[in-house]
């Protein structure tokens, strides 16, 4: 059947030049688990991922040709931009802090409020939002169609050199799914290749143990990510309603997605509004400044304060989550350089 299809395509002239795209194999540790998300109609291929990487760094996808995804998602900062709020094509700051792009393969609902189901849907937002890249997908497709390189790359990835919005978001998503960070010092410890200091070990215990600082309840597991939405006590009256704006439910007021803590030492400032400049401020928050409200997570009520040393140990653990190979991996870098 598949052969027949390929034969048919050959007949119409929209043939893959070098044969059909080759499957791309994603690799990750077994302790990440296999609850990954790859839509049936967008399997990862070598050619698709290569194209997606180029599109990720392609400024032609923005009006004015100055901004790409990488403007707000820089590899050296684990795909964040170091700013409290990002600046798009029209100079207006984004309402929320840019998010790290790591281990997205396990995420199902994207953005701080989880409003985009799947990466393909997510990608449309920055591409077309007037404060981000500000260009209709149809125009992006037209611009790429006229370029000397892209039609052939789209043909290799999708079997036809006709460029469509759908193929642009598919290729971008394929690339993003390959952004896997699993070689942090903490991973080396899990593999038995790194001996943590006493402070780091205590930080690990504090983080994961229910009797400790209780971080693991929300940021649990070696991925330091679980797809949960919580109010983590930033404000008693949240300025940004977060998840409530999506679901319309009062109980979702001030709830945001529990973000991954992978590479967290590289992704300051912190929280959806980038209010904390350092991890020390974050530790202070969870120890001393949890704000009560009707929607505060029950897991953050009546907490024990952390000692100075405990805060230091927690921060030492968070530093173990830095993955220096992830931020220097050539497969994720700017292909135009």
């Amino acid at each position, binding site marked *: 059947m598949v052969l027949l299809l390929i034969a048919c395509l050959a007949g119409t002239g929209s043939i893959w030049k070098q044969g059909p795209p080759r499957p791309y194999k994603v690799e990750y540790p077994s302790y990440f688990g296999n609850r990954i998300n790859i839509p049936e109609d967008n399997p990862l291929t070598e050619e698709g991922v290569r194209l997606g990487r180029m599109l990720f760094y392609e400024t032609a996808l923005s009006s004015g040709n100055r901004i790409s995804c990488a403007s707000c998602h820089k590899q050296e900062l684990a795909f964040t931009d170091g700013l409290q709020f990002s600046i798009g094509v029209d100079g207006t700051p984004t309402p929320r802090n840019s998010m790290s792009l790591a281990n997205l393969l396990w995420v199902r*609902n994207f953005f701080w409020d*989880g409003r985009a189901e799947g990466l393909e849907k997510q990608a449309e937002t920055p591409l077309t939002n007037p404060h981000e890249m500000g260009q209709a997908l149809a125009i992006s497709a037209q611009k790429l169609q006229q370029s000397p390189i892209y039609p052939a790359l789209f043909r290799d990835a999708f079997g036809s050199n006709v460029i469509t919005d759908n193929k642009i978001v598919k290729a971008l998503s394929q690339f993003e799914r390959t952004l896997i960070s699993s070689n942090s010092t903490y991973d080396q410890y899990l593999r038995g290749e790194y001996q943590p200091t006493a402070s780091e070990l205590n930080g690990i215990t504090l983080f994961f143990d229910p009797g400790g600082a209780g971080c693991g309840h929300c940021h649990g597991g070696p991925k330091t990510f*679980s*797809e*949960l*939405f*919580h109010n983590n006590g930033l404000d008693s009256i949240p300025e940004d309603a977060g998840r409530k704006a999506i*679901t*319309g*439910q*009062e*109980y*979702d007021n001030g*709830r945001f*997605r529990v973000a991954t803590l992978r590479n967290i030492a590289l992704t300051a400032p912190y929280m959806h509004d980038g209010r904390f400049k350092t991890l020390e401020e974050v530790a202070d928050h969870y120890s001393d400044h949890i704000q009560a409200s*009707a*929607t*505060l*997570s*029950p897991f953050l009520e009546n907490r024990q304060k952390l000692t100075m040393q405990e805060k230091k140990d927690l921060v030492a653990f968070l530093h173990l989550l830095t993955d220096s190979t992830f931020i220097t991996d050539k497969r994720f870098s700017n292909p135009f350089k």
Partner: protein
Amino acid sequence: MKVYLIALLACFSLHQASAQEASLSVTGEVTHPLQLTAAGLSKMKRTTVALKDRDGKEHKYTGVTIPEILDLAGVTTGKQLRGENLTKYMLVKCADGYEVLFSLAELDTSFTDRTAILADQLEGGPLPAGKGPFRLVVPGEKKPARSSFQVTEFIIRFAK
């Protein structure tokens, strides 16, 4: 009885919850997808069970048994729960994204004596903010980790 049930069913399926009203949906391998609201739940047969909470104390929760809800949605329960139907499970989803799973047999009165309920009352009053309006209460487990808060969905599926 039958007429009553059908009337009730019709009422539940027509009653689409408004955007702001919290509700529980029952979907998947069901003959009648449901959207239950607090008002709907209060009209069904009520059951009270005891659960030992994280505070180590027993508390009385009142609501509707899970088999009762599954029957209303036309899920294979009781005599129908055999053969391939024994490979079905119920995925419970909560407002905060929390998810837990039960095999249908674990919840069925023909398999077990314990009574899991969807509770909307604690000690005769409403559930505390953060846990309600609907909490799954599963007595007889060593940890209350599956007695999840703010339940929004039951999804019935075949294990594949």
